């Protein structure tokens, strides 16, 4: 099976947000793979491998639309175990979700994957749009916000546990389709592919994406990375969304520590009028 994983680079979410001229100051930002996309790569790898024998049952292709530097994030995905990469040159400013989905739809026409796995949202813009837009454009089914994934033995469908407001919804989609992943998909037994023994556990506790081994990092240097430009795909690339400005939220007024619970309850009643 062939799996395509679109990944986006984001400024390191652990760093403090700074503004410059009414926009996020990205000078000197350090860039990382969007957290959810790292989880998407992990999901794709789990779906195509036999974790106990190590053999591969398919191809994982990672793709990003971004500037030259974004090649580094593709290399990280290759070091985790993806097989090849495509970088489509594009400036962050010239992209919005609609343009990204339109370009990805063309990549999919050319690559013909059986499945697209991606993050449910990019943790910088928090838009949560591209996966659903892409599925809509392609006329494919979508399974968003996946916490668990099971690939059918015949590889023709996926059953996904989706975390929805009311609980967990189990949705089955025929392939080809679009899968977007939530955090818990990297828990030790969240992904089943009917190849890896069902009893297999990926790590312990909360699990997590695999680390690139030294061998993986060395191998990644030799893996193919195709360079393309948006123009190669013949789509309208005018973004429909323009950022007019960014502001920081007002800080909450400093609170107080109170000595004990009776004092707390008294203040909640008299001062905050919250009880």
């Amino acid at each position, binding site marked *: 099976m062939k799996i395509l994983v679109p990944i986006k680079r984001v400024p390191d979410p652990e760093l403090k*947000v700074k503004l410059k001229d009414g926009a996020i100051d990205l000078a000197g930002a350090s860039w990382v793979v969007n957290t959810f996309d790292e989880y998407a790569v992990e999901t794709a790898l789990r779906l195509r491998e036999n974790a106990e024998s190590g053999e591969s049952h398919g191809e994982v292709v990672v793709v990003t639309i971004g500037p030259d530097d974004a090649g580094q994030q593709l290399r990280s995905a290759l070091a985790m175990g993806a097989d090849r990469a495509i970088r489509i040159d594009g400036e962050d400013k010239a992209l*919005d979700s609609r343009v990204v989905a339109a370009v990805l739809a063309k990549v999919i026409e050319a690559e013909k994957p059986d499945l697209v796995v991606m993050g449910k949202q990019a*943790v910088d813009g*928090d838009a949560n749009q591209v996966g659903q*837009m892409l*599925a*809509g454009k392609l006329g494919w089914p*979508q399974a968003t916000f996946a916490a668990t994934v099971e690939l059918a033995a015949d590889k023709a469908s996926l059953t996904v546990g989706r975390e929805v*407001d009311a609980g967990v919804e189990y949705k089955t989609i025929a392939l080809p389709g679009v899968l977007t992943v939530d955090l818990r998909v990297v*828990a030790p037994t969240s992904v089943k592919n009917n190849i890896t023994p069902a009893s297999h556990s990926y790590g312990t506790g909360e699990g997590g994406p695999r680390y690139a081994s030294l061998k993986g990092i060395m191998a990644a240097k030799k893996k193919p990375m195709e360079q393309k430009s948006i123009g190669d795909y013949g789509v309208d690339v005018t973004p429909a969304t323009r950022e007019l400005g960014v502001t920081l939220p007002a800080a909450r007024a400093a609170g107080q520590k109170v000595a004990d619970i009776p004092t707390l309850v008294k203040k909640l009643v008299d001062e905050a009028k919250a009880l």
Partner: protein
Amino acid sequence: MGNILAFCEFDGGALRASALSNLSFARQAASAHGGEVIALLIGVGAAAAGPAAAAYAAKVVTVEHGDLGHYLAETYAPIVARLAGEHGAAIVCATATSVGKDLLPRVAALLDAGMASDISKLEGGNRFTRPILAGNAYSTVEVSTPVVCVTVRQSEFAPAEPTGSTGSVSSADAGAIDAKGARIDRVDSQKSDRPELTSAKVVVAGGRGMGNGENFKQLEALADLLGAAMGASRAATDAGMVPADWQVGQTGKIVAPNLYFAVAISGAIQHLAGMKGSKTIVAINKDPEAPIFQVADYGVVTTWEKAVPELIEEIKKVKATR
């Protein structure tokens, strides 16, 4: 000039609280665009809930069909997109619930529309402000397509009040229904008598420091005393102490109650993203350096083992005097 097509979720003959926030945005947008609000109800029971919706919108359109029993983006999106065209919509909106977030970008793709997600404010025209970077910044965007899709952050738009007059209700055809090979097998949910997390006035949330699900029962007793909803951090939900749908935060639910109790929660930015709009925040944590104290209005440095029984005791006393 253009109308506002508001996709509204309903339950048992009435609109959900989340839909009222969407309608409140839709009214603001209608006055900005000079159009009217059309509430769109799709699914089994839509026709029965139509009259209830007519108290809130000038026009209600219902689409009822036996094959639309369970929400599916694949079957709902084409209906919304078609009706957007038929009703001259300039904006198609929904609340950013798990349904709204799944549906609207797919509708946007079918309409070739630009989209603004999870907005906190309408600035006028097609300009919207929305939180980015886990709520650490707000971005104002302008979307320039003829039709624009919007999801609305429930906690930022007060529920709409009835308009005072009764809107017209009509039904529309579902058209050809094609699930594209998707189906719902089942939904696991825990029925609860507590209020919905996203619209509750009081939320009691616990974190990893609660230790296990059994200990959470004590927090639940506190919640029930206060008529509160239960919330949790990701660490607590990941560890399986409580259901995943209790998670509050960047990737969980966004809440803004009058009163939020954060018990044994450290206060990671991703958790704060989901609750820092609360009016009054109380933190109970044994670590005086826990970041949650930086956003809390009232903090008590103590263990939950000591604090929770005392809280229950003291609140009972207050209630007894009323």
